[in-house]
C-alpha cells in the first residue's frame, strides 16, 4: 500500500503555526531568498516546463503557464491572489494547510509575486474560516516584521459566504467590491484581472508546494506521482468511512488505496456503493472503478475529474436520489442568479428531485432531468452552472435502480 507523502502538509503538526521562527527553523523562507537570486524568467521556466506544477484548486491548469502569461503581459501594475475561498462541499484541505502552516502559503505567494512582478498580493479567504483569517493576519504581520515582504504588500480579504466566489473571475469581482458574479472570459485574468490589470489567482495548495519546488528542483518534483500531474494531492475524506480527515499522497495513488488504506474502509456490515470524487460538481464512481490512479488524465479518460480532492464515500444505506437532493439544494443556494439556465435550472432540478425523493414524481421525470442537465451543461454562463448537474447525470447512468425504486414508491434497505 502507498505511504503518505507530505509536501503541502510537511510541517503540519510539527511546528507551531503561530510562530514564524518555527517555520524558519524547519527550513522556511530559504526558497524565497533563493528566488531573489534567480531571474524571473528562469523561475517561471522551471515551473512551466520541468516542474509542471498544475493548479490544485480543481481545474489543474499549468501554474507556470499562468505565471508566464501574467509575467509577459504589458504594464507594471500586476496582482497575485491566493484563492483560499474553499467552498466545495466535503473539501477542507486548504483550511488544514492554512491552520497548520500558514507561512508556506505566504512564502509561495511571495515567490509568485516576485516571479510575475506583482507588488500587491491578496489572500482571499473564505469568510467562515474566522480562525484561519486571524492566523493569516498574524502570520502576514510576522513576515513583515522579519522583512520578507519589503517589496510586496499582502492583504487579507474574505468572502461573505458565496461558493461561486471560488471561481477566479467572481473572486476578483468580489475583491473589487462588486457582486460576486463571474466575468466574461476572455480576457483571462492573467491579461486583465483585478482592476483590469494582469492577475494570477492560485489555490492555497498550489502555493504551499511552490517553496519546495524552488528549493529541491523541478526534477525532484517531476519524479513524484503521475507523470502528467506530478507531485502530491491533499485529499479530504468524508462520508461513510472509518477515518475521516485530510491526508496527502502522490498523485498516482488509486482510489482503492484512499478508501481502504487511508480511509480504513467503511463500517462493518455495509457495502461501498459509490465514491464522489472532487466535490459536488463532480460525478460518482462505482466500486469497480476504484483501481484507477486519481491523477487528472486518468480520470479524464473515464469522464471523471479530480476536482479539489474531496472524497465523499457513500455506502449502501443511501439511495442516490437522496444524496442528489442535497447536492441540488446546495446549487440552488449557491447560484448567483446571473444567467437564466443556472438560476432557474438549478431550482427546477431541485424541485423535480425532491418530488422524486418523496415518491411523487411522474414517470417522465428522468427524461426531464436529463434534458435539463444537458441544457445547463451547454448553456450556463460559468462552470458552476455547467457542472451543477454532473453528479445527477452520472447517477442517472450508474444507479438506474435507485431511480426506479423512488419512482415506484419503495425504499431500499
Amino acid at each position: 500500500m502507498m505511504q503518505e507523502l507530505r509536501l503541502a502538509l510537511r510541517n503540519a503538526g510539527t511546528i507551531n503555526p503561530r510562530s514564524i521562527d518555527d517555520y524558519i527553523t524547519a527550513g522556511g523562507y530559504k526558497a524565497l531568498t533563493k528566488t531573489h537570486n534567480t531571474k524571473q524568467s528562469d523561475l517561471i521556466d522551471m515551473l512551466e516546463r520541468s516542474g509542471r506544477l498544475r493548479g490544485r484548486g480543481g481545474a489543474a491548469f499549468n501554474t507556470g503557464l499562468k505565471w508566464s502569461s501574467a509575467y509577459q503581459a504589458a504594464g507594471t501594475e500586476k496582482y497575485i491572489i491566493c484563492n483560499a475561498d474553499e467552498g466545495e462541499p466535503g473539501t477542507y484541505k486548504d483550511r488544514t494547510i492554512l491552520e497548520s502552516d500558514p507561512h508556506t502559503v505566504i512564502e509561495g505567494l511571495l515567490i509568485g509575486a516576485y516571479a510575475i512582478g506583482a507588488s500587491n498580493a491578496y489572500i482571499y479567504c473564505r469568510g467562515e474560516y474566522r480562525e484561519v483569517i486571524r492566523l493569516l493576519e498574524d502570520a502576514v504581520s510576522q513576515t513583515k516584521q522579519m522583512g520578507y515582504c519589503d517589496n510586496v504588500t499582502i492583504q487579507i480579504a474574505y468572502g461573505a459566504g458565496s461558493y461561486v466566489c471560488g471561481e477566479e473571475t467572481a473572486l476578483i469581482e468580489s475583491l473589487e467590491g462588486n457582486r460576486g458574479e463571474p466575468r466574461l472570459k476572455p480576457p483571462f485574468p492573467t491579461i486583465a484581472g483585478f482592476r483590469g490589470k494582469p492577475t494570477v489567482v492560485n489555490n492555497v495548495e498550489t502555493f504551499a508546494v511552490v517553496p519546495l519546488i524552488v528549493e529541491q528542483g523541478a526534477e525532484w518534483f517531476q519524479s513524484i506521482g503521475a507523470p502528467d500531474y506530478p507531485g502530491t494531492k491533499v485529499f479530504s475524506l468524508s462520508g461513510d468511512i472509518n477515518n475521516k480527515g485530510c491526508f496527502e499522497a502522490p498523485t498516482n495513488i488509486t482510489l482503492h488505496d484512499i478508501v481502504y488504506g487511508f480511509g480504513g474502509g467503511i463500517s462493518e456490515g455495509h457495502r461501498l456503493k459509490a465514491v464522489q470524487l472532487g466535490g459536488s460538481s463532480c460525478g460518482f464512481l462505482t466500486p469497480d472503478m476504484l483501481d484507477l490512479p486519481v491523477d487528472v488524465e486518468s480520470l479524464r479518460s473515464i469522464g471523471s475529474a479530480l476536482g479539489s480532492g474531496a472524497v465523499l464515500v457513500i455506502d449502501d444505506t443511501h439511495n442516490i436520489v437522496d444524496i442528489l437532493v442535497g447536492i441540488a439544494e446546495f446549487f440552488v443556494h449557491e447560484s448567483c442568479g446571473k444567467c437564466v439556465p443556472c438560476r432557474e435550472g438549478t431550482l427546477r432540478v431541485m424541485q423535480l428531485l425532491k418530488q422524486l425523493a418523496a415518491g411523487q414524481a411522474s414517470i417522465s421525470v428522468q427524461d426531464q432531468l436529463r434534458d435539463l442537465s444537458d441544457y445547463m451543461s451547454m448553456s450556463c454562463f460559468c462552470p458552476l452552472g455547467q457542472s451543477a448537474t454532473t453528479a445527477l447525470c452520472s447517477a442517472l447512468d450508474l444507479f438506474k435502480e435507485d431511480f426506479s425504486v423512488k419512482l415506484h414508491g419503495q425504499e431500499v434497505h
Partner: protein
Amino acid sequence: MEAVTIIIDGKTYSVPREITILEAASLNSIHIPTLCTLKGIDPKANCRLCVVEIEKSRTFMPACATNVSDGMVIRTNTPSLRRSRKHTLELLLSRHSVDCHHCLRIGSSKCEDLDPTFCEMCFFCDCVRDGICELQALAREYQIDVLPYKIDSCRYPIDDSTETVIRNPNKCIKCRRCVDICCEVQAVNALSVINRGKDIQIMPEMGKPLADSPCVQCGRCGQVCPTGAIHEMEHKDEVIYFAHQYGMTTIAQISFDVLKELEALAGLASGELDIRVVASGLKKIGVDVVVSDKFASSMAKSQAIKSLRECIGHTKQPIIITSSYATKQFINKEFASFNNRIITYPSPQQAFSSYVTDIWSQTQQLDAANIRTISVTATNENAAEAARNNSVDYVINARELYRIFMRTGVNLKQWTACELDSFGEEECEVSEFDELLEMVEWKIDSNIKKFEFTVDEKRIKAAIGITLGHTRILLEQVNSNQSPYTVIRVCA
C-alpha cells in the same frame, strides 16, 4: 479595418475583426434572438438566448459577448440551439406572471373565453406590453405551449410608489437592462440587483420603494425593459372614459417625437407616418381637439430665449438651463447647491397645459373643470411632472397610444388622415439660441454635444447633456470650477 472570414450557417462572410458574432450576424441580416443585450452597453450574456454553436467549442457560446475570429465556424439555428432557447423561455415563463391578456371580468386568459362585446371597451385586462413584448414574441417564435414546470408567479408586491414609473417584479426576467441604463447611462444609481440565485430581484437598494430611492422618474428603464416589469403608469382607461363622456372636452397634444416609435411599433417605414393620421386616430376614439406640439414648443422656446438673454453676459458662472422635470429632480437630489441657479423653462407639455387652461378655455367659453388635457409624447421624463403638478391630466407615450389604437381598431397602416386643430399661427422666431434649444433625442451611446454660437458678436461655448450621465459629468465640472462652458443645457 482588418477583416476576418467567418462561416455562419454554411455561408462565408467577411466581417471586421473585433466585432461580436451578434454584430456580424446582424450586419448580414441573420437573426439571433436576444433578451438582455443593448446596443451601446457592454454585453452581459445573462439571458443565454443568443447562444450559438461554434465549432470546437465545448459549450454553446453567447453571440452577444463572443468576438469573431478568423475561420470561425458558427451555427445559429440548429435543433439543439432551438431546444436550448426553448428551455430558457420555458424556465423564464414558468416564473413570470403570464397574464398577457387576462380578463379580470371573466377570470380567464383564454381567447375563446373572452366576450367580444366587452373587449373593445374594457381595458382592465391585459399586460402593458401585450403585443409589444419581447418575451411574448419569442415565446411565439419558439412555440412555447405547455410549461413543463410548476407555475410560480405573482409573489411580489407591485411598486407604484412614484405614481409614474411602475415596477412589477413578477414580470421581471432579470436581464438587468434597466440596471445598466440606470447606473451606467443615467448615472442615477436607483436600481440594483439584490439577493442571489432564485431570489434575485431588481429593485432599489435594501428593497426600498422607488419613491424612497434616488429615482428621478426619467423612465428610461421602462423604455428598455423587454417585458412589462417596469413601465410608465398607464392612463388609457381614463382617456377613453373622458373621451366618451358628454359635456367633457378632451384636448390632446401630439408631440412629433412619438412618430418614430409609433412607426416602429406599427411596422411602418421611417418617415412614413403622418402626424395627421395619428390625430385622426385620436379623434376616432373621441378626443375632441387634437393639436401638434409646434405652437407650445415655440411658446416654450420664446420663454427660454427671454431668460437666456437676461442672464447671458451678466454672470460669470456657467448658466444651467433645462426644461426637463426629471433633470430638475436629479439636480435637486444630487446637486442641491445648484437648486437656485438653474434656469428652467416650460416643456411643450407644460406650455400646452397652461395655454389651454388660461387662454384657450376662455376663448372657447369652456369651464376649465370640464376640460381634460392629454399629452402624447415619447419622452417619459415629464410624466412625473404631470402627476405632481397636474399640468396636463394624462401623459401617454407611444407604446400606450399604440395599444389604445390596437384595441380600438385604429390601424395606422390604413387609417385616413384628418386636419389637425390649431391654436393659431406659431411665431417662428429665428434666434441665436436655436442650436442650444433644438430637440435632442435620448440615445444610449450618445455623447455630450459641444458647440459654439455667437451672441452680441461674442463666441459662447455651450454643451448639451443628453442623458443624466452627461448631466452628472457637466455639473461635476461646474462644481469643481473646471467647466469650460458658458451655457449648459441638461436633459434626462
